[in-house]
């Protein structure tokens, strides 16, 4: 029967190749969008490494950075005053790498054939408490560390996996913007948010005297702290820093804003894909409908020579499923080139999942579209169909 169907399809290769092309294109688009969606879905399920609820970030007047002598006394004083307020727990000054801060500083260095690269977060000794970052190995830096010859550094797991796979690097000294001692590691710190890929990241200690950018203060706030507390905070800032210029950022809002930048276009893409599928479905329905009407006498004849109604329905479903299988086959041939050529950096499992999912959706649509017209074809009265021409 399959061979018979292949012959019928081959003889109508002109019309069938258009259907094939339509299915192939939808498969390729589906595959692309699905792998993008699955890639992000995978990302979003990974821990980001820090908490976003009840976290405020205080951004001060940037011109303050120019007076570095004043900064050295102002920053600790301000932090102390703020954490003394009843509704604020811990706080950490940070020059780079605060949650959703956008800006990154990537450092790269090659020594003795080892090339080390990472983005650098510059935060103070209270950062794990303020952000709820969890150490998996070693410890966080403290004030004593700053007196040592080697600058202490905490790294993330990806940094270790990338540069020193399988080696225990805690307490090792590496050359990375000077001599650095790795004293601890964290699982991850994806401060760009849940959609951000894993990046090699290190934490370096913040020192007011070395500031190049105006630091911001990450504050861990007690749950259910009302917005009015911003005013209280403002008064402290005014009395200590003598400025009215400040902004208070709520980390959970920044998270929503940042993540929307990824999921919103994704949602639009998925909707377009949905419309595409509906379009393909309607197109297929139309083509099948037309074909079946054109082949009424063939259907009548097949019934006369012994085809059961189910044979008729099966034939039409198989014809279109065969076309879909060829289209999906060709599409898969294209799709598997992507991991082979390493064009984009997406995991192989995601690509395979996308191929399978896209194929399932295509076969689902095609089967659904084929069932109704094929059943109608099976119901055609043979006596009537044979009588028509």
């Amino acid at each position, binding site marked *: 029967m399959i061979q018979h169907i292949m*012959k*019928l399809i081959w003889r109508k290769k002109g019309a069938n190749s258009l259907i094939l092309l339509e299915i192939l294109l939808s498969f390729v688009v589906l595959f692309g969008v699905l792998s993008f969606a699955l890639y992000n879905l995978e990302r979003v399920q990974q821990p980001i490494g820090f908490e976003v609820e009840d976290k405020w970030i205080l951004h001060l007047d940037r011109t303050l950075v120019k007076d570095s002598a004043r900064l050295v006394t102002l920053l600790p004083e301000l932090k102390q005053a703020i954490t003394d307020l009843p509704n604020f727990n811990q706080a950490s000054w940070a020059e780079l790498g605060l949650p959703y801060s956008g800006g990154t500083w990537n450092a790269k260095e090659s020594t003795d054939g080892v090339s080390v690269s990472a983005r650098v977060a510059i935060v103070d000794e209270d950062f794990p408490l303020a952000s709820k970052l969890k150490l998996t190995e070693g410890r966080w830096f403290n004030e004593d560390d700053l007196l040592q010859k080697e600058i202490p550094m905490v790294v993330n797991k990806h940094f270790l996996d990338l540069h020193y796979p399988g080696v225990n690097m805690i307490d090792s000294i590496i050359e990375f913007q000077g001599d650095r001692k790795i004293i601890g590691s964290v699982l991850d710190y994806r401060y760009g948010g849940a959609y951000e890929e894993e990046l090699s990241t290190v934490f370096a200690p913040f020192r007011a005297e070395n500031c190049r950018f105006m630091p911001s203060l990450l504050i861990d706030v007690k749950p259910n702290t009302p917005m009015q507390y911003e005013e209280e905070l403002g008064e402290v800032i005014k009395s200590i820093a003598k400025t009215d210029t400040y902004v208070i950022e709520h980390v959970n809002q920044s998270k929503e804003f940042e993540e929307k930048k990824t999921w919103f276009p994704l949602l639009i893409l998925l909707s377009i894909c949905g419309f595409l599928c509906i379009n393909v479905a309607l197109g297929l329905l139309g083509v099948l409908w037309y074909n079946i009407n054109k082949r009424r*006498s063939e259907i009548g004849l097949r*019934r006369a*020579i*012994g085809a059961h109604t189910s044979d008729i329905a099966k034939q039409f479903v198989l014809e279109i499923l065969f076309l879909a299988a060829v289209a999906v086959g060709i599409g898969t041939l294209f799709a598997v080139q992507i991991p082979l050529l390493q064009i984009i950096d997406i995991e192989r499992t995601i690509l395979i999942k996308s191929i399978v999912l896209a194929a399932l959706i295509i076969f689902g649509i095609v089967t659904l579209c084929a069932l109704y017209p094929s059943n109608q074809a099976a119901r055609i009265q*043979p*006596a009537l169909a044979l009588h028509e*021409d």
Partner: protein
Amino acid sequence: MISIQNLSKVYRTKTIETTALNNINLNVPKGEFLSIMGPSGCGKSTLLNIMGLLDEPTSGKVEIDGQSMPNYNSKSVARFRNKQLGFIFQSFHLIPDLNILDNVELPLLYAKVNRKERKRLSEEALESVGLRNRMQHFPGQLSGGQKQRVAIARAIVGKPQIVLADEPTGNLDSSMGNEVMDILLRLNQVLETTIVMVTHDANMAKKTDRLIRLYDGTQIQ
């Protein structure tokens, strides 16, 4: 072989009711070559379709080989048509996208005969209608008479007991018609196939064992 009792067929549409057949009683013994004549619209095709289990009678009984067929859409009726009946139509009804060989082996495909055997039987059937050399052609490349001979090969490839032919020579000129008629006569004589043929051509009807005439759905002779 075919026994028809008190058979009536009424077509009901929204506006009118047509009595296509009215109380037909007919017996076709095994091996008979029967022809049916009558003016256009008198119900000849309807009668043939009912004999061929393609259509249901409104009332009355059809028995083939002593068996009556209750449900016309059932698998067993489909199988019966496949094994015991062969159809030939005025307009040939060949499938244009299949070559001659594939057209002829179609009934065997539904009978689930294996490929080798299908080919052998189809070649044999094409041989008997003198078209073995045209196996790889497509229907569009054949003349009307040749097409009808292919249709005959298809009707007899499964060696059915009964062949039902609805104006098999209706679209053919007289020499081609005679060729087709000769094949049917030979089939009837050599294989003792029971044949019921609708025709408008009295000369063709004369060559058969028996002739009945229909008029307005009623048998008049």
